[in-house]
């Protein structure tokens, strides 16, 4: 049978003159959604945000200045409460198997996209459990009074109060512009739940198909407003196993591989056809305690735990010299960073704290370790094992708990854990991005605050910092906030990692950003 087929195929071979064009990116997890509004999962954002969508403005990775994207200009009123965006004309939405746009992007789309997040009367607000983790955790829903369409290409955001991080938040990967026309089509078809799974955006690629645990296929968006693309396709090969991903890189089945682990970098760097990129990334890996659960509600216990772990050992065994030990929750490259007196490795002191807290014989606890490798924690399991053995020294018996990644995040969101090893990679260079989404009271309610920590004084500091645009003043507030975190220790910052990416040398134009996801909009293959 094979020979018959082969011989029959001979004449077709001649037709195929041009080589098939596209990039294969080996991703580490299935996307949880195809709409960045409803998730903050880094692996998902990498896959969907910059490829399928555009935002109104973006942040230049080098100068940290705002750049025009779908908005060509923006104007802030004197009291800082009104921000008016002028929109770009002739921006087309994706034309896919399930939707054909009849008009270009206009103010209706922008109003719709943001209304979905904040307006309970928007028909899509409650689709997908009405959970918009990023915007809820930074308190945007409390900030925006309304969004007004001034004319077809002008949109005005009216705020309750001025806030210095507003533009930064509008520039994150989560603030994407969706098609209102597509949404209305789904309403007519009574098929609203498809909205987040069958995406329509303005980005360089359009959605073609998704086979769970297998692949995601994007096709080129022919009328992309920014530039013409050389690549016909972008395919994500979902390979959850770390070693398989690297092996596929070696056999050239992947053009780009996400998050190679530190131990594999040497093997990759030894090959002349593989390039390993290293980027400083704004992130922090931390150990968070569920501060609502006893005994972790007691600050003495948290201090005992923090003093019991050997940071040096973790840096060596987990990061292999590709990270720096944390001196605050903020990474040193953030402008608000200030070195803090971090708890040092001191088992004697830890034991004293335990006795003071009333646990001379220790206790039993859970230690949740994330099952995937992230920039801020390349091997949480190993880190958990090290911490487990350190804790045993002071009489605490820790059990390591693992779940599949999406289940893990869901359960941490419900605060089912005692303590968890997690981390945060920034979406904007604004320091607020490290505090509000992680440790504010609103973040507790939206399930993003893994320490389950709600401290009014801390929240006040964050609000004060956001209320002013004076950089020095903001710096002071954030420094107070950092001091407070070290005193209270709802989380123990452990390390800041480097972001790695392996790619074939024939692939150019991958944009690895110090914050937010990866952009393959300009990626080319020679």
């Amino acid at each position: 049978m094979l020979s018959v087929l082969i011989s029959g195929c001979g004449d077709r071979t001649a037709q195929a003159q041009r080589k098939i064009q596209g990039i294969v990116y080996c991703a580490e997890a299935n996307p949880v959604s195809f709409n960045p509004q409803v998730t903050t999962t880094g692996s998902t954002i990498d896959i969907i945000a910059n490829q399928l969508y555009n935002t109104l403005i973006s942040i230049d990775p080098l100068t940290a200045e705002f750049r025009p994207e779908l908005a060509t200009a923006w104007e802030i009123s004197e009291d800082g409460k009104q921000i008016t965006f002028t929109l770009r004309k002739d921006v087309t939405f994706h034309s896919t198997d399930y939707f054909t746009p009849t008009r270009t992007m206009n103010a209706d789309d922008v109003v719709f996209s943001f209304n979905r997040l904040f307006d309970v009367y928007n028909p899509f607000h409650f689709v997908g459990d009405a959970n918009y983790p990023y915007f809820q955790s930074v308190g945007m829903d409390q900030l925006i009074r309304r969004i007004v369409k001034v004319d077809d290409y002008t949109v005005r955001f009216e705020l309750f109060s001025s806030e210095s991080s507003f533009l930064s938040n509008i520039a994150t990967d989560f603030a994407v512009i969706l098609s209102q026309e597509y949404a209305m089509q789904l309403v007519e078809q009574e098929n609203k739940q498809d909205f987040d799974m069958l995406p329509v955006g303005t980005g360089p690629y359009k959605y073609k198909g998704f086979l769970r645990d297998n692949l995601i296929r994007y096709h080129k968006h022919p009328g992309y407003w920014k530039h013409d693309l050389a690549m016909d396709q972008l395919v994500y090969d979902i390979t959850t196993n770390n070693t398989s991903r690297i092996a596929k890189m070696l056999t050239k089945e992947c053009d780009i591989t996400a998050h190679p682990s530190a131990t594999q970098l040497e093997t990759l760097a030894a090959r002349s056809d593989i390039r390993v990129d290293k980027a400083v990334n704004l992130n922090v890996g931390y150990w968070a305690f569920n501060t609502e659960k006893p005994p972790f509600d007691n600050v003495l216990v948290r201090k005992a735990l923090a003093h019991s772990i050997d940071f040096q050992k973790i840096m060596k065994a987990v990061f292999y010299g590709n990270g720096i030990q944390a001196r605050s929750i903020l990474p040193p490259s953030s402008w608000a960073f200030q070195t803090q007196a971090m708890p040092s490795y001191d088992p004697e002191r830890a034991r004293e704290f335990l006795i003071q807290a009333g646990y001379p014989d220790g206790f039993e606890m859970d230690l949740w370790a994330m099952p995937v490798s992230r920039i801020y924690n390349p091997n949480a399991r190993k880190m958990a094992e090290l911490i487990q053995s350190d804790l045993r020294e002071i009489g605490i018996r820790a059990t390591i708990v693992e779940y599949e990644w999406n289940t893990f995040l869901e359960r941490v969101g419900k605060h089912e854990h005692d303590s968890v090893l997690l981390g945060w990679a920034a979406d904007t260079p604004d320091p607020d991005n490290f505090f509000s989404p992680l440790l504010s009271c609103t973040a507790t309610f939206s399930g993003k605050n893994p320490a389950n920590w709600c401290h009014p004084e801390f929240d006040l500091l964050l609000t004060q910092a956001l209320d002013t645009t004076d950089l020095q003043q903001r710096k002071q507030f954030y420094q107070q906030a950092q001091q407070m975190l070290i005193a209270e220790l709802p989380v123990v910052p452990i390390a800041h990692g480097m972001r790695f990416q392996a790619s074939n040398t024939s692939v150019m134009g991958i944009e690895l950003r110090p914050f937010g996801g990866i952009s393959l909009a300009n990626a080319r293959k020679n």
Partner: protein
Amino acid sequence: MFADFLFRRLSLLLFMLFALTAFTFALNYLFPGDLLTNFSGELNANYSQTQILEQKYHIDDNLLIQYQAFLVRLFQGDWGLSLSSGQAVFGHVKQLFPATIELCVYALIVALCLGIPAGVICSAYHNKWPDKVISSLTLLGFSIPVFWLALLLIMIFCLSFGWFPMSGRIGLLYEIPPVTNFILLDIWLHDFPYGGQAFADALHHLTLPTVVLAMYPTTVLVRFTRDSMLTVLEQNYIKTARAKGLNRRQLILDHALRNALLPVIKQIGLQFSTLITLAMVTEVIFSWPGIGRWMIESIYQRDYPAIQGGLLAVSFFVIFANMLADVIHTLLDPLARNQAHGKV
């Protein structure tokens, strides 16, 4: 006579299917977790949905009615939803099973093309060096665990030499719409501008998994053909033919082979269950998108409706394959029809 045989086999088939479906039905009760979730795959159903599901699955009725409803749904293709993907289990099975069968069929073709001639050569040169070499190689191939062989080949041919890809059925950039789900046929059917490249790429992907999977059936076929041929060559009619002055080629090809292959045909059918099991291991190692890999992932994720569906599909298939081989064997061998009872 043949009708009688067929009737016996079909009644046995019906009994086997009954036992299989009853077992699968019982699994809903045996698996941990909520009964309704096990049946339907609906997680977090709200009150009104639960009501509808309870009616649909006849939860309040006795077991017999529940089982009857289960059978009806089975034939309608309503196999519940997968817990991990939220999509219909039957849809997954329809999409993934052909990839597994494809792999098994190619492996079987390779096994037939290599195994039978090798077995014939062994018997023709009984106890001479070709027989000894082939028999030793067969023993080696028979003893190598399939996962080890797969990893060894990947290490040598994929990672060291870079000759073959190590995962999937075809390069991901080739977008082949599934029609028959046999990748080579689909490329052929689909008018694809890169048809030639795609075909070569698919063959490239097929090579290592097929070789790995073909190893076991090939060795079995070599041994069976050899033994069967040797038995036939001892028969009086062969001796008579030899006495008449026929040469070795005529003896083997015209007189012995046809009779010697009869037990081998039956063996091919029996090989299918082993082949499917080995295919699962091969699929996992080569990331082949078949039902085996899907089932093993479902087991990891405790996806009970998917485990049930996969189990049912694979068992159905193995039973039918065995039955088919049995019937074909009987068609070709009139003596076998005289068996009083059917066997599986």
